[in-house]
């Protein structure tokens, strides 16, 4: 657990404090994201936790211990630290980079070597990477090595300063997923600074939104933040697409599905007309057992579903996908629905109406 108690920082010569007085509690095993505009003191706050920056006032406790009583370097060896450009030592091999903290802590060579092996595997890196130098690695590999290095001595707390800020969006998204998968196994207490509200919403259990001068505007889980922003600043910071962002927090598996305007392969004209009328649409789907065969316009089937050429549904969503994916599928298809499957088995569909009800309700 990390507790910030009336913590403030005023840089020498600065007119206003970077952080005025901040109270914040991060519970063990959760990911907390600090977000806010530049100048909100989020990085200052992060660096005060490992004393890279000395607080001007207030106390910070990590695992109940006042960090002011621990020498900076000693404190930092017990806290993982990951930064944007990884800061890998270019003159040392990957193995040496990862071994930095264990070596300082005086671990035995064999133990260190085993630990390096574990971490390389944990991060999904090629075991042969150990003897290479940072300059020979891709951006994504370097970022993973940066995380491995921070985890080397198995610290309970991890501080991450814009860890995915310097990589392209596709890789960023993948590294975020990897972080979440890692966290499910390791249960670290993680404080992460980001300027990207979407990243905060995606990875954090709780998000702290900071205003200029380190003023805490709201501290809440992402869902609550999006549903009930505390004030105009938070609302503004979350952006106009708050509803869409909320959709990205809801898994398809959590919401009820509808059968949709579907009929059996041999259905007659009346049956087709009834299915379309019930949903108020001018198309129908054909389901055979648990197989969604495709869809056609009502006007193409004047004498029922038999023998009509069906168009396939291109996207097959699964329960683990989010409502944001569902909305995207629905509005980009001609039918305005998102069919959902369990593997290949058809479960039901989501209409745009049903998706929007999740945000409104």
């Amino acid at each position, binding site marked *: 657990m990390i507790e910030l108690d009336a913590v403030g920082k005023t*840089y020498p010569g600065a007119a206003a404090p970077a952080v005025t007085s901040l109270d914040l509690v991060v519970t063990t095993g959760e990911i907390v994201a600090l977000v806010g505009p530049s100048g909100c003191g989020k990085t200052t706050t992060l660096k005060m936790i*490992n*004393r*890279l*920056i*000395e607080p001007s006032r207030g106390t910070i406790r990590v695992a109940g211990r006042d960090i002011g009583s621990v020498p*900076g*370097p*000693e*404190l*930092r*060896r*017990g806290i993982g*630290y990951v*930064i*944007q*450009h*990884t*800061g*890998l*030592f*270019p*003159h*040392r*091999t990957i193995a040496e980079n990862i071994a*930095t*903290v264990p070596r*300082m802590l005086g671990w035995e060579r064999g133990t260190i070597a085993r630990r390096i092996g574990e971490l390389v595997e944990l991060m999904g890196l090629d075991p042969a990477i150990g003897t290479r*130098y*940072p*300059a020979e690695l891709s951006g994504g590999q370097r970022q993973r090595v*940066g995380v491995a*290095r*921070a985890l080397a001595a198995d610290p309970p707390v991890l*501080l991450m300063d814009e860890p995915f800020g310097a990589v392209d969006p596709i890789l960023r998204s993948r590294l975020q997923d990897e972080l979440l998968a890692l966290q499910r196994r390791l249960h670290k207490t993680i404080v992460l600074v980001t300027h990207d509200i979407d990243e905060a919403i995606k990875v954090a259990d709780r998000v702290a939104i900071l205003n200029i001068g380190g003023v805490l505007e709201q501290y809440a889980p992402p869902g609550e933040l999006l549903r009930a922003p505390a004030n105009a600043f938070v609302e503004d910071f979350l952006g106009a697409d708050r509803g869409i962002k909320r959709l990205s927090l809801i898994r398809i598996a959590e919401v009820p599905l509808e059968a949709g305007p579907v009929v059996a392969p041999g259905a007659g004209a009346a049956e087709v007309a009834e299915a379309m009328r019930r949903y108020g649409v001018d198309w129908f789907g054909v389901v055979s057992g648990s197989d969604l065969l495709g869809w056609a316009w009502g006007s193409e089937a004047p004498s029922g579903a038999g023998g009509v050429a069906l168009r396939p549904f291109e996207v097959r969503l699964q329960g683990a996908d989010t409502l944001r994916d569902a909305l995207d599928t629905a509005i980009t298809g001609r039918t305005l629905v998102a069919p959902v499957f369990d593997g290949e088995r058809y479960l039901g569909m989501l209409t745009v109406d049903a998706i929007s009800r999740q945000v409104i309700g």
Partner: protein
Amino acid sequence: MVAAKVGDMIEFLGDLAAWFASSWDGDTGYLMRIWEHVTVSGAALLAAVAVALPLGAWFGHTGRGGMLVTSMVNVGRALPSFGIVALALPITIRLADALPVIDSGLGFLPTFVALFALAAPPVFINTHAGIRGVDPDTVEAARGMGIDGRRVLTTIELPMAAAVIMYGIRVTAVQIVATAPLGALVAYGGLGRFIIDGFAVRDSVQIAAGAILVALLAVATDIGFSRLERRVVPKGITPTRKGGNIAGDVMVDPARAQWSRAVKPIHREE
């Protein structure tokens, strides 16, 4: 006309070859003079590195002493070597009078002092610039992992700055070797003897021989130090960092490089 000139030239080259064949031996032979040249150059370089490298590293590491760095840069560029030799002489003579351990205020000592004064500023400047040029993210990561300040300097900053520092030492070494002939003005030996004495007796063969030897020694120094540079710069430091560019800029216009850094506010924990 032309034939006569070519004939003169051939004759001159013959004389030069004869000089090289005959003048190598003894206390005033060129082997001895090379030895003297190398000794005073090496001593001055060693002393300059011993003093300026730790100072440059420390000021670079702490980010302090902006004024000192700037004045070093300016002094380093403005100091005329000839002037220092002239300036060093009265000082070393008085020093020798005051301290009986010093043999003579002539010869080696003023030459050494002048070369030291020539060498210390560029070594200081390049070390400082090299350390300041280390990627701040790497330093931050090092500190963030609990490496203490002194070890950040010795295990991260110095190895990463090695290319720039070594380049500074190499250029300085060549400069020392090329300037050491001035020692002959204050009664030191070295290869300058051939040039100065050659002028005194209008012996153009001796002047040319001295100049050739100084040039060869300077080239050898450059080759030697570039080999050393390759050995000292750690693996993994990328060629773009290692290449002459960064160091080249520093040597060409250190004042600009320093000022641009000096105006940036730097937050550092002490």
